[in-house]
């Protein structure tokens, strides 16, 4: 009996303590690790205007732990990640990144603001909300402390793009900066993708329009209804979950030959905003999809699948084609193809720059750097050591050694150097780099910190392995390589054949519409248009009577007052006249 009593008492104590496990200090919890002593030391080193020293903070000694939240999905690295530890040892900073799960960016940001506790660094798609809530530290003074960084990273006009109405800069976009010679090998944007095995089967034809594209898919399915192992091939699928529905929604602007302004079309000659939602090209695009859907070539699950289900489907290698953006699927899916050997069967995707009529110019690919002023990395007011935080930000941009550690890895382990000084990888190293558990234990890219494309400061190697021409070609599986050779291409953008031109200073317009809130009538219209499109675009594609479905869609669309939205975008465009 006594044993029972004691056991009961112990259990209830255990339960009580587990209740308390939930209480921890979360506010600036990471930075709390910094002792008070070294804030003095780091303040000294930060005040130095010797900017691009890849300095070892050996003087300050202590490693500062920062937290970061990014409103994109990603995988967390292990706490004992090897490269993260190496970076911490040399540059004195370790960042714990957390990613977006199960929410939209707006919800996550809104919840952070409502709770009032922020991580040290943040990169959100809703930066305006954070500025409104006074959550961010103005970075102007810090930027001026590092003149070399300031002058190398952006031009004064580009810096001005980030200036908020109150005159301060609160965030810095970490992407899209090319150093030296551009080595752009991937097409990081939207396209109609197709598997190389389909092109191989048809003997590498030239595909320019949607009609040709779908005809090819239909023919392939007729000849090869299943893969080798019996899984049924699927001609085409569409992702339209939540904000990723651009896969369905904005293809119309590209098919008309315009670049990725995202939410509107900009007519450069007349400097007016045009609405691609009501354009003829979009109508033809939807009609074509409708046709293919009725014939049974479009995945019936398209409109109800979640992003995870979509990626899982792509990873099985059975989907022949889709519209999507490279960064949305390629990293996960290509890694998985490598692991499962499907890349050897020709399941990799290449992009096609389709247009409504053959021979039209297209601008699917953006050749110059896109400065997206709508988001970037920012330091919050909850950060206990903004000096050290900003210095690390600068180090990420200015220190080649740190950059190589992040993107190439450890020399001798992840890559080797040949006689000419060029970096290269063995097959085993490539396999490792693509393996998820290796990534979690060893790879530390700090992907939302400043980074460069283009050529490394050593003048020879690319800043990113995927842009190293030798690596790029070697990394490819046989079928993919054959495809490139058959067309005579050496880079992905060549498949698309876009017009090489510089975009206007207003580009991309989506960076402005992303910041709309329901405070303005344009913002309300934009929010309502989004809801209507989410509901009606799938209905139009599935409709038995296309014209009737499209007419009903237009009625619902016009009820949202899209003219308010267009007017607001026009006002923004007018500031560039």
């Amino acid at each position: 009996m006594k044993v029972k009593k004691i056991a009961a008492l112990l259990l209830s104590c255990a339960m009580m303590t587990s209740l308390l496990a939930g209480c921890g200090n979360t506010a600036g919890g990471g930075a709390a690790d910094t002792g008070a002593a070294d804030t003095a030391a780091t303040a000294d080193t930060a005040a130095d205007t010797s900017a691009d020293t890849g300095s070892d903070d050996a003087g300050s000694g202590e490693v500062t732990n920062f937290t970061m939240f990014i409103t994109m999905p990603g995988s967390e690295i292990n706490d004992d990640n090897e490269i993260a530890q190496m970076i911490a040892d040399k540059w004195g900073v370790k960042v714990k990144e957390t990613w977006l799960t199960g929410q939209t960016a707006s919800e996550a940001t809104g919840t952070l603001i409502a709770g009032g506790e922020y991580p040290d660094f943040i990169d959100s798609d809703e930066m305006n909300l954070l500025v409104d809530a006074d959550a961010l530290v103005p970075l102007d003074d810090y930027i001026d402390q590092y003149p070399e960084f300031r002058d190398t990273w952006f031009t004064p006009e580009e810096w001005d793009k980030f200036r908020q109405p109150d005159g301060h800069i609160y965030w810095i976009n970490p992407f899209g900066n090319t150093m030296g010679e551009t080595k752009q090998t991937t097409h990081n944007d939207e396209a109609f993708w197709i598997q190389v095995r389909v092109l191989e089967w048809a003997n590498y034809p030239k595909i320019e329009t949607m009609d040709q594209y779908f005809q090819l898919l239909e023919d392939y399915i007729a000849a090869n209804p299943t893969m080798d192992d019996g899984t049924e091939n699927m001609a085409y699928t569409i992702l339209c979950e939540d904000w990723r529905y651009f896969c369905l929604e904005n293809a119309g602007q590209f098919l008309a030959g315009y670049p990725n302004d995202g939410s509107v079309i900009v007519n450069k000659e007349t400097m007016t905003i045009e609405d691609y939602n009501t354009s003829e090209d979009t109508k033809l695009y939807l009609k074509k999809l409708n046709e293919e859907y009725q014939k049974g070539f479009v995945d019936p699950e398209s409109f109800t699948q979640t992003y995870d289900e979509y990626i899982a489907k792509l990873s099985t290698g059975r989907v022949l084609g889709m519209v999507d953006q490279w960064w949305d699927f390629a990293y996960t899916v290509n890694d998985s193809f490598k692991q499962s050997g499907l890349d050897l069967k020709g399941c990799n995707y290449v992009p096609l720059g389709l247009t409504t009529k053959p021979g039209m110019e297209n601008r699917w690919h953006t050749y110059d750097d896109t400065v997206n002023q709508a988001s970037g990395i920012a330091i919050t007011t909850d950060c206990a050591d903004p000096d050290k935080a900003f210095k690390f930000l600068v180090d990420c941009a200015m220190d080649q050694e740190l950059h190589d550690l992040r993107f190439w890895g450890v020399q001798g382990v992840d890559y080797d150097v040949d006689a000419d000084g060029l970096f290269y990888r063995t097959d085993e190293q490539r396999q490792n780099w693509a393996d998820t558990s290796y990534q979690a234990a060893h790879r530390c890219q700090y992907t939302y910190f400043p980074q460069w494309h283009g050529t490394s400061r050593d003048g020879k190697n690319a800043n990113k392995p995927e842009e190293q021409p030798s690596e790029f070609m070697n990394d490819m599986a046989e079928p993919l390589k054959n495809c490139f050779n058959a067309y005579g291409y050496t880079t992905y953008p060549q498949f698309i054949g876009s017009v090489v031109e510089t975009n206007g200073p207003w580009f991309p317009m989506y960076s402005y519409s992303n910041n709309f809130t329901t405070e303005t009538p344009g913002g309300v219209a934009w929010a309502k248009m989004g809801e209507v499109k989410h509901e009606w675009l799938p209905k139009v594609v599935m409709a038995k009577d296309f014209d009737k479905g499209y007419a009903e869609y237009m009625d619902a669309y016009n009820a949202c007052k899209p003219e308010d939205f267009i007017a607001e975008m026009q006002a923004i465009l007018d500031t560039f006249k």
Partner: protein
Amino acid sequence: MARKKTNEKVRTKITFKDIKKQGFLMVVSFFVVVYGIIFYYWPLTGWIMAFQNYKPKKGLLGSKFVGLDKFKFLFEDEVFIKVIRNTFAMGVINLVTTTIMAVLFAIILNEVRRAWIKKPIQTISYLPHFLSWIVVTSIIHVSLSPTGIVNDLLLRFGVIKQAINFFAFPKYFWPIVAFANCWKETGWNAIIYLAAITAIDPALYEAASIDGADRLQKIRYITFPGIKPTFLILLLMNVGNVLNAGFEVQYLLGNGLVQSVSQTIDIYVLKWGISQNDYSLGTAAGLFKSAVSIAIIVIANKLAKKYSDQRLF
């Protein structure tokens, strides 16, 4: 101490002696009351946000007062009207189906004589309650997809000729949500009813056997009236919750095609309130929800007082 009789309005005088006698109880309940005030009543001052154009920067006292503007926006928005309809509909359907299922399940389980079957079944039945909605909705989403097991079976038995994507049609959504709730909560809800049934005096059953009642009649004349008090109290408590029809299930299972029937008040608040940084709108919607829930509970309680002797307050 004067004793209060039912129709007499006698005010009992509470003296300090009485308080001292119940000293310990007073101290304990003091803490509970303080907790209640801090966590349940003090936050209600936030309701003022619904009448302001609240900005976190300016705080409660600094934000601009706009009166009923936010409420006007809400009720002029036909999406919000639809959303109220969805929440009510799903709330009522869930309430009715889960209650019926729980009662039925409890009664049927009670009829099982052998304990070694009854206990495991009961334990297994309430396990789904502990699963998170993420897990349950993933299972449901996959099972009901065109390549899922439900379509597979229906096709095999020739019931349908082509796979149906159940999530693409608004008409299936409410039944799916009701089914999900029943599947997850029946076992758990039945626990209380089972306990109530066990509390019924077995002598009544014996008496009924002697009178020649068969099983169904025993259920009808003894079991049902026996659990009536429990049933009514639970119903009263749940009726106030009808507008909390949920957020997780609808959020996870909804999509663009069914959004006109899947969005609930909570999802609306998330989309148009928190995501748009418009906390006032969210508070206004929440205030509306609370007001309606209170009204429903008061009315239900009055009805209960009138027609039965169960009541909440």
